[in-house]
């Protein structure tokens, strides 16, 4: 076996996330691929359930979804929730100390009801049940040889805490391993799990990847306000930025956060903020200011279910309209959507480069399934990354510097306080090239065109859209952001079953690269636009902006808005359905489809 899914579940406060994190670090550090999915309630403790899914594989896996191989349950409820989703021949581990009226039963799986609490108590603390369970998992997967590495990772995770904490956790883990080896009568087959290590790789979350990219791109100023699920970005930068002389400043609200960043950017320092839906709404006016005053700034929006407070811990892709059109007025900006954790890094590098080069706000759309998700990333070649800095004017005594000089590209060189002879006033009011405010009709027209011209210039620079699957497929999927893992896996499965599908991920969503879509759609009979929102936000954008494209192509939507990410299975089912309908001379009675 070279690909397994482990799920650790329980109530928040039981250390589900810690044990999942430790296991994912250890497997990655042993050189295996791991990708994860975390779901937890917003309350730190209480009745909320926590779920941590890891998929460990020899080759890179794209999602952590599918049937469970090993399910570890630290509470009663999650046993009955999860037992049905265990693979035939899989394992259920739960605490025999839990008082359960009707113990779980399934004939086609192995059930280990073990005294996790007692074992933990013997080693010092009943609270270390999570580590005992982890020890059992590690021992079941004996041919992955994770023991030594996982002890190192326990030390790393708790290094800031008291020595006893580390010892208690290590003892509990060892006790779990010992119990499995010496006492447990094994009837499962997970000794067969055996994978080749594929060497050094990185493991990080989507939020950490955004933080790392910011520092790499030269960002030295971050201002933010805590909000789930984006807080991890500011926490990570709070720790790392000062090491580079940079600053992370916690503000009184999101309005302050973005305006701090704009002040810092005016000072010539690369700046960013990160937030989620409610904070993103509050930032809209200042995003317009950045657009009008032509100030570089990067905003990461780690989307969650909306509107309003919505479901803070669950995922959705429903801020696309807000990102593209949320600000009043004609507001040039750039919106990017990373597809996975590695792409969070590369798109954030792009975001800073675009912001600096084109002097526009750049929005990076992540989401609650991508931000906290930890997965393996191939080594990053830092030295060969292209890093762009804003264009400086040629300043001389007696030479008048006009901040908003109307150039061919639309880009005007930009000075910063401290630069002699570069003094200028920037403003959110419409202004002349000489930065004087004016209501003159010809100036507003000219300067609006100047600001949008930058986007035309930028369009040539966007990194290529990602395609996946067979080019000659007649079924196409157009999607964006974190859905990519599930979509690509579904395409693989479809191929195995004789259905050819090709996917397109533009990654740059605004300005919309219509040419890419045009090229992609050329030979497609049916397009399915897949996204996690009710309004089909990307589909309506494509349909609206690409009416000139291939009128024969049928454009369908496949939407999800329950807060959970897409799974490859449900996308495959949709592909299958669509392909059958196509064969039946495709006719749909629903109104959920559109022609170009």
């Amino acid at each position, binding site marked *: 076996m070279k690909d397994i899914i482990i799920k650790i579940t329980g109530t928040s406060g039981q250390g589900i996330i810690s044990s999942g994190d430790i296991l994912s670090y250890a497997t990655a550090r042993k050189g295996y691929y791991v990708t994860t999915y975390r779901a937890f309630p917003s309350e730190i403790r209480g009745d909320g359930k926590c779920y941590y899914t890891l998929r460990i594989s020899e080759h890179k896996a794209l999602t952590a979804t599918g049937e469970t191989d090993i399910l570890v349950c630290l509470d009663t409820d999650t046993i009955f929730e999860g037992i049905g989703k265990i693979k035939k021949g899989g394992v259920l581990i739960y605490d025999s100390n839990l008082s359960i009226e009707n113990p779980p039963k399934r004939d086609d799986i192995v059930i280990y009801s073990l005294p996790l609490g007692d074992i933990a108590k013997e080693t010092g603390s009943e609270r270390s049940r999570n580590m005992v369970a982890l020890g059992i998992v590690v021992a079941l997967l004996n041919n992955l040889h994770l023991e030594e590495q996982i002890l190192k990772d326990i030390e790393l995770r708790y290094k800031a805490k008291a020595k006893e904490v580390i010892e208690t956790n290590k003892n509990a883990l060892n006790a779990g391993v010992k119990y499995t080896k010496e006492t447990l009568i094994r009837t499962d087959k997970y000794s067969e799990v055996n994978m080749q290590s594929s060497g050094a790789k990185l493991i990080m979350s989507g939020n950490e990847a955004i933080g790392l990219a910011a520092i790499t791109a030269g960002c030295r100023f971050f201002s933010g306000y805590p909000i789930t699920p984006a807080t991890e970005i500011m926490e990570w930068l709070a720790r790392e930025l000062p090491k580079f002389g940079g600053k992370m400043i916690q503000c009184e*609200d999101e309005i302050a956060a973005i305006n701090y960043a704009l002040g810092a950017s005016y000072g010539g320092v690369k700046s960013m903020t990160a937030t989620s839906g409610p904070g993103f709404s509050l930032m809209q006016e200042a995003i317009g200011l950045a657009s009008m005053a032509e100030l570089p700034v990067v905003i990461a929006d780690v989307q969650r279910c909306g509107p309003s407070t919505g479901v803070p811990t669950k995922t959705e892709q429903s801020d696309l309209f807000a990102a593209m059109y949320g600000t009043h007025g004609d507001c040039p900006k750039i919106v990017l959507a990373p597809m996975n954790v590695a792409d969070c890094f590369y798109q954030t590098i792009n975001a800073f480069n675009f912001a600096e080069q084109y002097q526009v706000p750049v929005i990076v759309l992540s989401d609650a399934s991508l931000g906290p998700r930890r997965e393996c990333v191939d080594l990053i070649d830092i030295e060969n990354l292209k890093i762009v800095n804003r264009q400086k004017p040629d300043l001389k005594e007696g030479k008048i510097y006009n901040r908003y000089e109307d150039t061919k590209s639309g880009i005007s060189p930009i000075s910063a306080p401290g630069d002699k002879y570069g003094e200028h006033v920037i403003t959110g009011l419409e202004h002349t090239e000489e930065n004087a405010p004016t209501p003159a009709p010809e100036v507003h027209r000219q300067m609006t065109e100047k600001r949008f011209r930058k986007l035309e210039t930028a369009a040539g620079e966007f990194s290529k859209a990602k395609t996946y699957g067979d080019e000659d497929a007649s079924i196409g999927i157009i999607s964006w952001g974190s859905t990519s893992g599930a979509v690509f896996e579904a395409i693989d499965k479809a191929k195995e079953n004789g259905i050819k599908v090709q996917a397109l991920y533009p990654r740059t969503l605004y300005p919309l690269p219509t040419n890419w879509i045009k090229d992609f759609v050329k030979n497609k009979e049916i397009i399915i636009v897949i996204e996690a929102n009710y309004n089909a936000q990307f589909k309506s954008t494509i349909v609206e902006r690409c009416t000139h494209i291939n009128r024969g192509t049928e454009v369908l939507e496949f939407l999800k808005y329950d807060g959970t990410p897409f799974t490859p299975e449900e996308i495959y089912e949709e592909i299958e359905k669509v392909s059958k309908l196509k064969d039946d001379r495709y006719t749909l009675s629903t109104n959920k489809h559109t022609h170009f």
Partner: protein
Amino acid sequence: MEISEYKGRVKPSWCPGCGNHAVLTALKKSMAGLNYETHNTAIVSGIGCSSRFPFFMSTYGFHSIHGRALPVAIGLKQARPEINVIAVGGDGDGLSIGGNHFIHAGRKNPNITYIMMDNEIYALTKGQCSPTSRIGTTTKCNPYAWTADRINPVLMALSFNASYVARGYSGDIKQLEEIITGGLKHKGFSFIHVVSPCVQYNKVSSFEKIKELVRNLPENHNREDRINAMQYAFSPDGLYTGVFYQTQRPTYEERYQEVIAKAKQIAGDNCTIQDVMKQFK
């Protein structure tokens, strides 16, 4: 520096007789006295009549959005601590829409000066009540009766622990220059409340009326006594001007230097991206 060197590209657009002209003159005088260089100085504002200020100066300037002068100014100062940063604005901008930022500026103590020109009215939108409008002010927005109490900016600044709190009056440029100079020299968040009458939309708080109310703080007022300063700010028998309070405590920038020093203690002076990357390996 000569005062004339601070003249901006745009001619002041305020009404003739507006109190803000005096503030512009006083600030230029203070800056000239302290030899502030135009390229090392930035004036930051929000929206309102007084917020047009940066256009009338030859320094760097950022005319931002309504209520946000302080966050922009503090952000700039944190990114570039060596630049002289002065935030300016009105009572509506700083006490109403931007009120929250005022609280936290006091708490953080960034080394910037904030000059609030208080005309007790929204003038750019042609006369509506502001948070400092007096009893009896009627406008098109409250044509029948006056409906809310006014707030006291000096008392607020004192309670927010601003480290320099002063009040001036547009009718006295000499005193205004003194307290602005004191504010610019002060290390920390200096708040200068300027009663700056509007000649167009506020008949209740006219120059004549304010002149009757204004009196200097006593010569022997102890600037370090915050409670006493609050009593003068509260005083019903007039509008005191002068420096209410001044204290020294570490600025936000200084405190952040400690953060950087601690981080560098852990990471070393020459931390590289590769070093940071290790945590992911």
